């Protein structure tokens, strides 16, 4: 093997990774749910039906010029109709297209899968060079089986103005527990699960006090489910009922009103006496520059009734924190070993900060280089920082291929020593994800505990164990198996598993026997378990989806407490990230790049063409900024959407309309914020609108131009933000566009 080949293999290995145990479990669960609707079966059914029909009514259909088959699909299902175009990318299923801008040539569309139709039989059907087949706008009628729209009539030509989806009005939904942005995130996360339930999401986005959701069919079951799981969602159905029975109004589940501006995630620490600390992600820090890590830190000295904001240090990587009392605490930035596979080239560093004055100020701890101290034999993902006093702290580390490790410091975090954990008797570690992943080390009484979980080869589901140490973490011993990894130690002998009423369990002999526990605790977290922390044998705190609960009787009764947050700010809040700088600028004296026959651009010095554009994509050019802008590349990508501006937004569309639309539907900004922040300007005498967006680690700008009926979208993005110089150069490049026709 040549040095170059070795280098290439290392570079590829560095990008790669092995599937995590969690992913394997998810995949197994997906398989357990059964095979998804088979395209082949539909094809077979269609072929069979076509054969039968051609023998009977084929002549009639052919005489109408439409080889449509009014058979197949669920015969008892209600009928629906929609106005849309039909489209199928090469090798992909045919879909009824929801109104979205499409690239030219199109590469398929979003919508619902359609069966029972020969798309080529629809008048005006066009086959593009990339193999995509598309029809004009037509009216469709068919039956909906929860996954596929089975056409029962031949498509009929209709007018363009009928393409707007007609919403079904539902009763007012209950108040949501989360912010619209949080609900949007949950919908994104749950889209596949919802589809498995026959709830096909067509589009969704935040509105003033909730989230607007368009689903394929808004029947009562669907609406009820969405109300119960997402709170204030305004449900619209895309397919309109023809002869479906009237939908009874769903009965909204009453959701306890909570703070209107709940954060995305809250980490808890330092529960002792009346003190508890909360590290809050999400609003108000979902904007550039508002908080160092996109997060804020709060301290309560009255058991969570009132909170005061404290400072946080700037940390990179995975952020974790640990407090031992009201004044002493640590923050860690754990450089992520991206694959957690034990790759020897990705050691991963540990950055640590310490405060002794209640997070008024922070000082960085001079941690001895991890590579120097521990070598590079293999790296592991480090997480779950946990200190138990001023000197003693722990970090958990794991990967897919090696024994899990608990690192311990005896000097406040400067040096760390690792101990690998032995396998429990009924667990055999194997490479490829069959290893144990550790939670945080917790001190209860005089003992230390850590919960470990992992998948065993050929066995489901995950197994969970508790390890303990009675010598301050010098040695660790496997103690017992536990029913889930959401076990919390209240005392050395009394442990709880708190999930939901009827699911909670208790042991009073350190896990030897478990019994049902009549706690009223109800997790706000639908997937996984809550984060629970006990300060003593009576007082405990729990977090789920950003909402906090507290018990003062050892876990039997729980009540909501105030979740710390500061008033939300409209984004982008920092004038430096606004784009109102004027969009015109001088052309650079470099060789122009042709974007299309219609225009060209002069790249700024140092910007390079990635050549990473597929022939069928809307993107016309992608440029990477020079490294001088920082250690992460800034990208600028030019997209052209042929004819889509008028189709999607109507004849009165302006660049500002589109900017506002994108800002609200895609990034959760309030319409007011978006409308006031984009700066109208012109690019090469064309009206344009732009807006900046930011969302924690992501930030960018979108520019919208309409030129001769075409929508041009120009997108800038940079991980962690975009430097001011990059913005200026990009603006000048955009200003350098020369329209040639």
């Amino acid at each position, binding site marked *: 093997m040549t040095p*170059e*080949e070795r*280098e*290439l293999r290392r*570079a*590829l*290995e*560095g*990008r*790669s*990774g*092995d*599937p995590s145990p969690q*992913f*394997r479990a*998810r*995949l*197994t669960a*997906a*398989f*357990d749910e*059964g*095979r*998804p*609707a*088979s*395209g*082949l079966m539909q094809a077979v059914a269609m072929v069979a039906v076509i054969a039968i029909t051609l023998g009977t009514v084929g002549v009639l259909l052919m005489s109408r010029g439409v080889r449509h088959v009014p058979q197949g699909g669920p015969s008892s299902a209600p009928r629906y109709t929609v106005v849309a175009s039909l489209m199928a990318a090469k090798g992909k299923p045919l879909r009824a297209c929801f109104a979205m801008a499409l690239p030219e040539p199109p*590469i398929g569309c979003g919508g619902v899968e359609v069966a029972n139709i020969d798309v080529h039989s629809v008048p005006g059907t066009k086959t593009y060079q990339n193999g995509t087949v598309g029809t004009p706008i037509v009216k469709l009628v068919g039956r909906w089986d929860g996954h596929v729209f089975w056409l029962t009539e031949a498509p009929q030509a209709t007018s363009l103005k009928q393409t707007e989806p007609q919403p079904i009005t539902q009763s007012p939904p209950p108040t949501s527990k989360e912010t619209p942005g949080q609900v949007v995130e949950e919908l*994104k996360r749950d889209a596949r699960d919802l589809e498995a339930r026959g709830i096909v999401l067509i589009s969704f986005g935040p509105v003033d006090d909730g989230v607007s959701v368009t689903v394929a069919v808004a029947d009562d079951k669907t609406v009820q489910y969405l109300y119960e799981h997402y709170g204030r969602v305004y449900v619209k159905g895309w397919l309109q009922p023809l002869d479906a029975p009237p939908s009874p109004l769903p009965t909204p589940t009453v959701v306890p009103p909570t703070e209107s501006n709940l954060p995305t995630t809250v980490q808890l620490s330092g529960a002792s006496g009346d003190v508890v600390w909360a590290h809050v992600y999400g609003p108000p820090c979902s904007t550039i520059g508002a908080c160092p890590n996109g997060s804020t830190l709060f301290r309560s000295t009255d058991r969570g009734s009132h909170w005061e904001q404290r400072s946080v240090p700037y940390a*990179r*990587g*995975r952020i974790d924190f640990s407090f031992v009392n009201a004044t002493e605490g640590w923050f860690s930035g754990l*450089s*992520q070993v*991206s*694959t957690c596979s034990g790759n020897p*080239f*990705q050691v991963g*560093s540990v950055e640590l900060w310490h405060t002794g004055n209640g997070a008024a100020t922070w000082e960085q701890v001079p941690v001895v*280089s991890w*590579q120097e101290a521990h070598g590079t034999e293999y790296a592991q993902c480090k997480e779950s920082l946990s200190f138990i006093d001023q000197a003693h702290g722990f970090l958990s580390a794991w990967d897919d291929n090696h024994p899990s490790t608990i690192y311990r410091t005896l000097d406040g975090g400067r040096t760390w020593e690792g101990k690998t954990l032995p396998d429990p008797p009924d667990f055999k570690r194997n490479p*490829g994800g069959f290893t144990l992943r550790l939670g945080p080390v917790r001190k209860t009484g005089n003992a230390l505990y850590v919960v470990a979980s992992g998948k065993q080869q050929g066995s489901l589901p995950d197994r969970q164990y508790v390890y303990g140490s009675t010598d301050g973490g010098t040695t660790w011993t496997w103690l017992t198996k536990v029913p889930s990894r959401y076990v919390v130690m209240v005392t050395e002998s009394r442990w709880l598993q708190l999930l939901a009423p009827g699911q909670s369990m208790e042991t009073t002999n350190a896990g030897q026997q478990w019994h049902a526990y009549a706690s009223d605790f109800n997790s706000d977290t639908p997937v996984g378990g809550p984060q629970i922390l006990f300060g003593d044998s009576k007082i405990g705190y729990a977090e789920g989806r950003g909402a906090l609960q507290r018990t003062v009787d050892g876990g039997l009764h729980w009540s909501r407490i105030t979740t710390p947050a500061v008033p939300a700010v409209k984004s982008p809040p920092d004038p430096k990230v606004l784009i109102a700088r004027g969009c015109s600028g001088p052309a650079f004296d470099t060789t122009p790049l042709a974007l299309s026959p219609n225009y060209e651009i002069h790249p700024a010095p140092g910007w*390079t063409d*990635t*050549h*990473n554009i*597929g022939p069928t*994509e809307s993107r016309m050019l992608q440029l*990477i900024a020079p490294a001088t802008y920082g*250690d992460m*590349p800034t990208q600028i990508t030019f997209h052209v959407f042929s004819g889509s501006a008028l189709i999607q937004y109507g004849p009165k569309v302006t660049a500002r309309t589109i900017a506002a639309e994108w800002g609200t539907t*895609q*990034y959760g900004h309030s319409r007011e914020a978006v409308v006031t922040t984009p700066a109208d300007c012109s690019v090469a005498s064309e009206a344009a609108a732009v807006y900046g967006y930011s*969302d924690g*680690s*992501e930030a*960018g700008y979108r520019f919208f131009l309409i030129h001769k009926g075409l929508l041009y979208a120009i*997108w800038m993005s940079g991980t*962690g933000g975009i430097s001011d110089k990059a913005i200026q150069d990009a603006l000048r490049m955009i200003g350098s566009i020369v329209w040639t026709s």
Partner: protein
Amino acid sequence: VSEDQAAGRLQRAKAGDGRAFEELLSPALDPAFRLAMTMLKDRGAAEDAVQDAALKAWRKLGSFRAGSELRPWFLAIVANECRSARRTRWWGVIRFGELPPRVAPEDRSAELVDLDAALDRLPQQHLLALTLYYHLDLPIEEVARVLACSVGAARVRIHRALAALRPGIALEADA
């Protein structure tokens, strides 16, 4: 696993037995995930791509011939999913997730960083060819099956990918 066992497993999977399909897919899962990670450089996106590919493979299992090799067939589906994932990103909310770790000088050599950046810029079809051959270590015949081309054409593609990655790089596709 004997041929009879494999055939039985395939038959059960075709009949909708999820456990049988998982067993069938299991040997190809790790290389498939590595392929997706290398192509997409994002764990979440890779998981989505592999899961979607797995479900598609299950749906399409009826067209899979008994006695054929499942791995190249499945890897081709995964590669398609990765291409689709990259194409459709524009329409979704683009998330970078956690900040990637800053590359400390002692962690990786400058050359490796340069090469990684070059891989970032490489067209997908080139990256796919290099991943199959140099990372997954597939025999050239299997690379050809995934790429749906002849063995000779696969060699040419790898050669072109190397040339695009770094002109003059001293590697041979038929090593």
